[in-house]
């Protein structure tokens, strides 16, 4: 095993930045090559999921309806889908490029990184569309009803913080999973199954505060803290809290919490965890990248 330093590997990656660009381009072009809607699918896919969830939850909800419920689902769905698809693409990426890995030298990290970067670009574009939509929607209602209900928060400008954390987390996990999938192709299906379960555990169509609501007292506080130790749950929650004003929780008479000291604390913790996972992913990958081509 040869261990190279993070600094040397970053310099080597920078020297091959043009190849990263080409691989990302190839991914972006190849993905929707033969589809009519093209990039539209990156928006339509989350949109359909959000509408279905909104419809079902609103139908089941008793009591007061959550205003703009779909906006809160959307806001967590976009970063979730980024994580989900980036991991699913990074997982078999080394297998797809194995032909090239066996025959030429280039920093091997480029392969999973390109898969993640292509998804990051889709995610950023979709987020921009979401923000534009959240600006136009209240204006539309204002023109129709004369009431202005502005859900966007000024803290939306701080979204790059959780986006950075989420990207690091995804890179770290992607580096691990791409190696595992190369050695055990079953990992692709295991990853797929796990992601489907994780989806239900993540605060995408509910709010984590529901834990404290259903379990008052210290037990709820402890469970909430454990839940928020998961960097992904914490980042999705921060994403929602930074972008939108507190929501009335479905089936409850309480609002979700705004970004306060506790929320910033959880975000900081998630950032630290994400950095640690990214560094661990790099170390794991770096120790194995030179033997990638040594399979039969």
């Amino acid at each position, binding site marked *: 095993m*040869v261990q190279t330093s993070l600094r040397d590997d970053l310099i080597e990656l920078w020297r091959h930045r*043009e*190849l990263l*660009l*080409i691989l990302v381009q*190839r991914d972006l*072009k*190849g993905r929707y*090559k033969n589809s009519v809607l093209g990039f539209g699918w990156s928006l339509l896919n989350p949109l359909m999921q959000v509408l279905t969830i909104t419809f079902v939850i609103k139908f089941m909800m008793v009591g007061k309806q959550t205003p703009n419920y779909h906006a809160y689902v959307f806001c967590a769905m976009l970063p979730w889908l980024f994580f989900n698809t980036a991991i699913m693409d990074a997982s078999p990426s080394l297998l797809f490029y194995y*032909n*090239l*890995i*066996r*025959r*030429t*030298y*280039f920093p091997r990290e480029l392969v999973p990184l390109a898969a993640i970067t292509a998804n990051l670009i889709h995610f950023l574009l979709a987020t921009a569309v979401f923000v534009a939509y959240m600006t136009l929607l209240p204006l539309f209602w204002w023109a129709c009803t004369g009431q202005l209900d502005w859900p966007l928060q000024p803290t939306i400008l701080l979204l790059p913080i959780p986006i950075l954390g989420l990207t690091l987390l995804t890179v770290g996990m992607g580096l691990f999973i791409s190696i595992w999938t190369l*050695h*055990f*192709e*079953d*990992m692709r299906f*295991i990853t797929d199954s796990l992601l489907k379960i994780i989806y239900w555990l993540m605060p995408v169509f509910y709010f984590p505060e529901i834990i404290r609501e259903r379990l008052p007292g210290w037990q709820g506080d402890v469970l909430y803290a454990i839940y928020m130790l998961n960097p992904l749950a914490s980042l999705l929650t921060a994403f929602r809290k930074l972008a939108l004003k507190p929501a009335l929780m479905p089936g409850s008479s309480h609002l979700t919490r705004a970004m306060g000291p506790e929320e910033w604390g959880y975000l900081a913790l998630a950032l630290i965890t994400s950095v640690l996972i990214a560094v661990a992913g790099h170390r794991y990958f770096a120790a194995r990248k*030179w*033997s990638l*081509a*040594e*399979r*039969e």
Partner: protein
Amino acid sequence: MTSPERVAVIEARDVEKIFHLSVYQGSLKAALLSGMKRQIREVHALKGLTTSIYPGEAVALVGRNGSGKSTFLALVGRIYLPTSGNLRVQGRVAPLLELGAGFHPDLTGRENIMLNGVILGLTRAQVAEREADIIEFAELREFVDAPLRTFSSGMQARLGFSVAVHTNAEILLVDEALAVGDEAFQEKCFDKIEAFKRAGKAILFVSHDMTDVERVATRALWLEGGRLREDGEPAGIVERYLAEAHRKP
């Protein structure tokens, strides 16, 4: 043969390569069945190779299957690292990619030139600059904007050769396909290779075609069982190698 006043582009000192191949690789079921114990099979591909290769040389690696020829080529190309010993490679290396290795069937010929050129170490600007020459040499003008999957294997091979020789690599690595395409194109390939030698670049190639070896090589390395058996004039080595191959088939 080797002029001592020049600096070697490839310098190998006791280069050894041992592959540790896990037997279960590929499926989790197999791994679980073998109790997660890694059954490692060792393959000693190179057992200490020492040689220097100089600019302007065309070195043929000859030897039977499993003698370590391709392993040495891959080590020079930094596909993997030597287990022990020292391997110093000076300058940019361009491997002549096997048919389709660096290509994507859904992208056009032009897009594949960009992809392949950048993989071989050019910048996008440099590829764009050479694009016309690459297309011209490969004789693919009217097809270059069609998807690669519509290309015949000969057209793909011509494109691959053309991209590789248009990079400004100091060392060209070729595994098996020294000249590609039809008779006329093969002659163009040989001309290009001669030009490469005259330009003071080094070519390291593996071939089982002894006519190619005698035609192109300025020097031959005969590998046997991961060791260097002979190093010298291609004609003599080819003769002795063939004589031995015919004696014990």
